[in-house]
């Protein structure tokens, strides 16, 4: 199922603050889209608006080309998984999963055997075949999460909306469920929208990331594009550790303000600019007068270095052989792979 959102604006109740500010977004049939951003960015509000929860809004929201208003919930074919799972504690796992079928009007409702069959099928799908008679309180967080998902899937929705579904799980379970969810999405041919504040999670599971900040969409792009060409410094910083170097562009070269940072050629007009790059994209060069100090342990195969550059000190990550080649006394930083920003927008991205 596809979703088209055009200039959607929502105000906070009793306040002039906008929770969503002129949001436009298209989600194609079969897409796996992640809404990412810091808390308060409007991700959950956007998700709830797509689901048709919550009150009035300005703009249009079309699901499969039709507006949801006035259509009964069961015709909308939307599955929703809440952050706190919202399982019915007084029902067994099986009854929770069957809920969407149990409440169908009699003439549409499958008979008991068919419902039991569907529940068994879903329990198999979420890999908890033995837990149909358990109550939610007897399950672990990861199990509850999967039950909530099975409950949302029971009525065969075309659109699956997930609100921070992995928030309360430990890292190992998170990673497992993430992969499993991606597999499920592909297997069932769903359209999935996932809300998360964890960029790693979003990058791993989604085809496309929609980065939000203060109720607006800052960037909507495939995962790899976000890292190579972030639209704003915020996106750059949100997606991982980033270092900033102030400077200016003069006649096709970026001149950093810091001492012992090498200039590099750029195709940009003259003026002030800020270079952003990841700590591991910086290289050490054996010239100049910078002082590097190794500190901390290993980070994967890389070592953490503290480099004194005259007025300030930056932390970078390098491979050990780099230290070997460049030494740690009298070094400079090569920031050729930086993305350049001017006035909060991407100017040029150099390197590869």
């Amino acid at each position, binding site marked *: 199922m596809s979703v088209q959102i055009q200039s959607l604006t929502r105000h906070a109740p009793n306040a002039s603050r906008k929770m969503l500010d002129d949001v436009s977004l298209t989600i194609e049939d079969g897409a796996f889209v992640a809404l990412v951003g810091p808390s308060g960015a409007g991700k959950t509000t956007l998700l709830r608006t797509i689901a048709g929860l919550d009150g009035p809004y300005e703009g249009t929201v079309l699901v499969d080309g039709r507006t949801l208003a006035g259509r009964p919930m069961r015709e909308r074919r939307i599955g929703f998984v809440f952050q706190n799972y*919202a399982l019915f504690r007084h029902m067994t796992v099986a009854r929770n999963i069957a*809920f*969407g079928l149990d*409440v169908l009007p009699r003439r549409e409702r499958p008979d008991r055997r068919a419902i039991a069959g569907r529940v068994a099928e879903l329990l198999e799908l979420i890999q908890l075949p033995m837990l149909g008679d358990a109550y939610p309180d007897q399950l672990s967080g990861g199990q509850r999460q999967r039950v909530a998902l099975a409950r949302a899937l029971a009525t065969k929705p075309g659109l699956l909306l997930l609100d921070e579904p992995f928030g309360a799980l430990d890292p190992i379970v998170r990673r497992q469920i993430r992969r499993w969810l991606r597999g499920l999405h592909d297997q069932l041919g769903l359209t999935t929208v996932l809300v998360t504040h964890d960029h790693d999670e979003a990058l791993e599971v989604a085809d496309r990331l929609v980065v939000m900040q203060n109720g607006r969409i800052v960037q909507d792009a495939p995962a790899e594009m976000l890292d190579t060409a972030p639209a704003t410094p915020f996106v750059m910083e949100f997606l991982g550790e980033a270092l900033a170097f102030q400077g200016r562009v003069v006649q096709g070269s970026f001149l950093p303000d810091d001492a012992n940072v090498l200039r590099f050629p750029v195709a940009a007009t003259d003026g002030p600019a800020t270079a952003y790059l990841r700590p591991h994209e910086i290289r050490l060069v054996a010239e100049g007068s910078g002082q590097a100090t190794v500190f901390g342990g290993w980070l994967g195969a890389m070592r953490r270095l503290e480099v004194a550059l005259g007025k300030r000190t930056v932390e970078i990550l390098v491979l050990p052989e780099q230290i070997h080649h460049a030494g740690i006394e009298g070094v400079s930083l090569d920031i050729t792979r930086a993305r350049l920003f001017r006035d909060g927008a991407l100017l040029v991205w150099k390197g590869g």
Partner: protein
Amino acid sequence: MVFCLRRRDGLPGLSISIAFTLVWIGLIVVLPLTALVLRPWQDGGAVMLRVLHDGRMYAALRVSFSCAALAALIDVPLGLLLAWALVRARLPGRRAVDALIDLPFALPTAVTGITLATLYGPTGWIGALLARAGIRVAYTPAGIVVALMFVGLPFIVRAVEPVLRGLPPELEEAGLLLGASPWQNFRRVILPPLLPPLVAGFSLAFARCIGEYGSVIFIAGNQPFHSEIAPLLIVVRLQEYDYEGATAIALILLLSALMCMTGVAALRRRVSRGLVARGAA
């Protein structure tokens, strides 16, 4: 440095507190109850036999229990509605209503009784209206039920309110998103978690109503075999200097109440399935 870690109880000095509590419970609750249980048998079983053959006592017990049960039952939906309005509706007078609900706790029961008797009496504001419709409330068992409803209502409201407040709004939204109609959502999603506090509130209200005296006697008319409640009969016996008879009725009242409460407790366990952690009970 090495710390010697000891598992601590949540409350400091728990064992001392428990010992202290047990002694006080013994002095305040168990001792008088033991006296109550023993007193009727002091002069042999004759008194007990006499009381057990007293039709007036059975009538009084029947009035007491049936009126208490009926009043508490009517209070359940009323209390649920009130609690709902307090928690969900953002009405302007909410705080005032919130304070008013506890009033039956604070009011001297005699004041309640006299007020209700005046209101529902043949010339009272409500009583006159009802009289025109041919309904008599004051000086009938219906009057007892009205008085007991007044006394029992806060128990239901206060039992349900915190649970209702604690229900995550996502539960209702989940129900609606899964296609439940508003009625199905209430019946299948919201009501079940409220049943344990409703039953608990019912049992508190019921217990209080069985023992209620002051607010009832002014409105009940107190005709033996018709609108005389068991607590009043005990007072009548005391005024006749029939102390054994009074304690015997009290003992039977106590045992009947105990049976009822046990039944209600069993019902509460039944409706709590899945809602309380297993193994704890």
